[in-house]
């Protein structure tokens, strides 16, 4: 799945851990926040996008699929199974394609995560509309998606930062692929020495 076997194992375990934590934070904390409009940021999707941006499209889509399937099965879920698996998989793949560009500018990951969140929100709404889900009625979609995107954009810097922190620790100072977000790597490097 990843480049080399020994790095792969640690990286996979770490990714699984990050996703599980993200899902628990999502259902137990984020979804219960009484935010205006009763819409909540999608931390799991942001995490998938962030992981994909730092690790490439293969990791992105596999992580996305697994995270999506878990989100489909986690207790309060009550939609058609597979919807999040499909959406997160696609979002993870698309975000992963952008991973080689990530080292161009330190602010690029944040922009990319926001864009990924936008794509994910629209894709989920689209799948819901196509399935004829009464919850994804056009009137509901049109009034919630803009707000959901806004919340995701607001939450994305924190998620990018956390994912970067957590996923980088195992990889020391060897930024692989699109890992090198200059400000962060430098700071992390100093802390670890």
């Amino acid at each position, binding site marked *: 799945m990843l480049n080399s076997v020994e790095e792969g194992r640690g990286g996979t375990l770490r990714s699984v851990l990050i996703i*599980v934590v993200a*899902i*628990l*934070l*999502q*259902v*137990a*904390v984020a*979804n*219960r926040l*009484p935010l205006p*409009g*009763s*819409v*909540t940021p*999608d931390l*799991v999707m942001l995490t998938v996008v962030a992981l994909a941006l730092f690790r490439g*499209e*293969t990791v992105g*889509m*596999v992580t996305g*699929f697994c995270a*999506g*399937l*878990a*989100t*489909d*099965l*986690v*207790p*309060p*879920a*009550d*939609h*058609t*199974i*597979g*919807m*999040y*698996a*499909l959406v997160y*998989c*696609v979002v993870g*793949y698309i975000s992963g394609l952008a991973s080689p560009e990530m080292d161009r500018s330190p602010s690029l990951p944040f922009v990319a995560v926001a864009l990924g969140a936008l794509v994910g929100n629209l894709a*989920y709404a689209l*799948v*819901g509309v196509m*399935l004829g*889900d*009464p*919850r*994804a*009625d056009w009137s*509901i979609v049109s*009034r*919630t*998606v*803009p*707000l*959901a995107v806004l919340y995701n954009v607001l939450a994305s810097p924190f998620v990018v930062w956390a994912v970067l922190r957590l996923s980088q620790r195992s990889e020391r100072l060897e930024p692989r692929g699109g890992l090198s977000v200059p400000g962060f790597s430098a700071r992390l490097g100093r802390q670890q020495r």
Partner: protein
Amino acid sequence: MRDTRRTRLVLGVLLVTSLLLIAVDHQGGENSPLRGLRGVGATVFGPLERLASAVVRPVGNTFDALRDAPGQRRRAEDLLRENQRLREQLRSNTIDKDRAAQLERLLGGAGLGGYKIVAANVISAGQGYEDTVTIDVGTLSGVKPEMTVMTGEGLVGRVTRAGPATATVLLATDASSTVGGRLEDSKEIGVIKGEGRRGLGVGATPLRLQLFSADAPLAVGQRVVTLGSKGDRPYVPGVPIGTVARIERTPGTLTRTALIHPYVMFTRLDVVGVVVAPPKRDPHDAVLPTQPAASPSGS
């Protein structure tokens, strides 16, 4: 790009898998063969959610205590200047009292209507477009699917799925939820539908009442209780739902619709009760709050 063909292959497999999942689950509906997977999800993630919720609850409670009671907060801040330890003590006391009061109201309401309830805490909530929550009681406490969930204030929703120690509740505000309702003091019946996530909708209420009779008397401030389902499942009769906030006049329709302001704050659910045994007799309007809502609560 390294290994593009393999990447493409994996992507294809994953996409086909998820599309298959969607197709099978969508076709199957309530009897879908994949529903068993949700049971696995509940067994695996249920305990984790309980744990996570137990960890974050004190944090949330602290925020709630601060927001709910500005007076308490001021007092707490005074004490902060005096003594950090005392302040912490005070806050935790307030929270305990608050939750005890919630529980008492719940039990009081249940006693009034003759409902037999199991008290539960909300531990997590659904995302996307679904208005669902997980509660920390399950089949081990006698909770089964299609049971009514209420708080001391009124109707919350119904249990859709029950795991061993957790259960999923579909809130009345969910866009796929319909509840039979009855106007107080009259026999006018109708259907209360959830409006889904509010989003940017201004002045919207989370519930909408459709009266079956086109010329039924309907006034702002009138209160609505559950009608009760056949065999008391999923909804038991007499649970307060809310008050009529605004009447919509749409010419040419056979039904009358009204926006309902619910008694329950759906975004701030904490202690809820699952009605495990319905009342022996329909409590009619007995469970409604004592003082009549003379001035209709706005919004």
